[in-house]
C-alpha cells in the first residue's frame, strides 16, 4: 500500500466520528468510492459510535412529540431512490389532507410530476456542484453558489410547494423553506413583455416591502429557478411589471401575490 493510501485509511475512525475537516473529507470520500473494504469498516465503526451515542439517552419532554406529529403532517416525504414507481405517485402522496398546499396540488395533478422533475433536475445540478466544489473549491462561482442555495431549499426538512396563476397569464411555482429563510421561484407561460419592461419580485410583510429581484428572461418558456433569500415571518411574495432595470418599490399593481407558508 502506498504511503498516501495508508494515511487515508487511517482516517476511517475519525470519519466515523465526524472528526474529519471538510477539506480532507472530500478527499477521503473519493477514496471511499474506490475502497469497498473501507466502506465496510466504517459501517462497523458507525455501529459502535451509534451505541456510544445511544447510551446517553434521555427522556424528551412529552409535548415535543405532539409538535413533531404536527410537523410531519405538514411535511412531504422524499420518494425512494428506486425507479420502480412513476414519479409523483410516491413522493407527494404522503401529504395529509387539509393542507393548503395539497388542495392546490389536487387541482393540478400534473404539478407533482413537474415538481418532482424539477427537484430531480435541481438535485442533479446540486450533486454536480458538489462534485465540482469537492474537486476545486477555489473555482466556486456564482452559479455554484446558486446551485447550493437551491439545493439547501430543496433539501430543507420543511420545504413546501405552492403554486398560483399569474393575473396576466402563466403560472408561478414556489418551493419554500422557512428554515432556510429562502424560496425557489419558477414560472411558466408568463405573458411576454416588451424589452423595456420586466417582471420584478417583492417580499411583502410586517418587515416592509423589499425588492426580491428581477426575473431572468424566459428560456424555453420557463423562468428560473431563481432563489429569493431573506424571508421574514409573515412575508408574502408578489410580482409586478416594472421598467426593465427594476424599481425600488412597486409602481404597478401586483400580477401575483402568494401567501407563504405558516
Amino acid at each position, binding site marked *: 500500500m502506498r504511503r498516501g493510501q495508508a494515511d487515508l485509511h487511517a482516517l476511517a475512525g475519525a470519519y466515523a466520528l465526524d472528526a*474529519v475537516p471538510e477539506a480532507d473529507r472530500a478527499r477521503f470520500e473519493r477514496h471511499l468510492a474506490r475502497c469497498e473494504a473501507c466502506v465496510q469498516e466504517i459501517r462497523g465503526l458507525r455501529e459502535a459510535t451509534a451505541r456510544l451515542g*445511544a447510551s446517553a439517552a434521555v427522556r424528551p419532554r412529552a409535548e415535543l412529540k405532539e409538535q413533531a406529529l404536527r410537523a410531519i403532517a405538514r411535511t412531504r416525504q422524499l420518494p425512494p431512490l428506486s425507479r420502480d414507481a412513476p414519479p409523483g405517485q410516491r413522493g407527494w402522496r404522503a401529504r395529509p389532507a387539509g393542507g393548503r398546499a395539497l388542495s392546490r396540488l389536487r387541482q393540478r395533478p400534473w404539478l407533482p410530476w413537474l415538481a418532482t422533475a424539477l427537484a430531480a433536475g435541481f438535485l442533479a445540478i446540486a450533486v454536480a456542484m458538489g462534485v465540482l466544489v469537492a474537486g476545486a473549491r477555489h473555482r466556486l462561482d456564482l452559479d455554484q453558489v446558486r446551485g447550493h442555495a437551491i439545493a439547501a431549499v430543496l433539501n430543507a426538512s420543511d420545504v413546501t410547494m405552492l403554486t398560483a396563476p399569474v393575473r396576466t397569464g402563466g403560472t408561478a411555482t414556489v418551493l419554500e423553506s422557512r428554515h432556510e429563510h429562502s424560496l425557489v421561484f419558477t414560472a411558466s407561460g408568463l405573458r411576454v413583455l416588451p424589452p423595456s419592461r420586466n417582471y420584478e419580485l417583492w417580499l411583502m410583510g410586517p418587515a416592509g416591502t423589499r425588492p426580491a429581484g428581477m426575473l431572468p428572461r424566459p428560456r424555453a418558456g420557463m423562468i428560473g429557478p431563481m432563489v429569493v433569500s431573506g424571508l421574514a415571518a409573515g412575508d408574502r411574495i408578489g410580482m409586478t411589471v416594472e421598467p426593465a432595470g427594476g424599481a425600488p418599490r412597486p409602481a404597478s399593481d401586483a400580477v401575483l401575490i402568494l401567501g407563504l407558508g405558516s
Partner: protein
Amino acid sequence: MKDVGVTDSQGLPRRGPADDAGADADVAGLLGQVARGDQLAFEEVYDRMAGPVLGMVRGVLRDLPQSEEVMQEVLLELWRTASRFDASKGSALSWVLTLAHRRAVDRVRSEQKSAERELRAASARIDYDDVTETVEATMDRERVRRCLRSLTDLQRESVTLAYYGSYTYSEVAGLLGVAVGTVKTRMRDGLIRLRDCLGVE
C-alpha cells in the same frame, strides 16, 4: 470492573445483544412503514429514537433547548427521508444517530466561535460522565461504559473528544498534545475495540 446484573440501576430489565438486534429490526421495519406515509409507525419510531437522539445531541451541544430543536429536526428528517433507509447498509440505530450526530456537529462548528471551543476543551472530558449519569435506562448504557473502560486512555479520550466534543482529529491532537497521526490511529483502533467489545458488526 463493575458488576453486571440482570437489571439496571432503575430496575428495568436489561437488554441483551439479541434484544437490541430485535429492537433494531423493529425500527428498521417501522421505517419502511414510515416511508409509505404511516404516521402511527412514525409515532413508534419517535418513541424509540427521540431519547437516544436527544441524549447524544445534548452530549454534543450541552444546551437543552438547542438540543431539543436539533432532535426535532432529526426526527422530521427521518419522516422525510425514511425511504432512503437501507437496512443492508447498517442498523436503523446507526442510520439515525449518524444523521443526528452530523447535524449536531455541524451546528457546533458553524455556530461556535473559536474562543468558546477552547473553553469547551476543558469541560469535554468532565462532562461525558455527567451525560451518562442522566441516561434513560432503555439502552445498554452499562455495556458501553464497560467497553469504553476497556480502551486505553488515549483511545478513549480521542474517541469521546471527537464524538461529544465535536473536535476534528487535528484539534483533538492539539488538545491532547500528541501527534496528529497518533490521534487518527487511536480513533480508529479505539473504535475497532469498542465495536468488538459491544459485539456489533
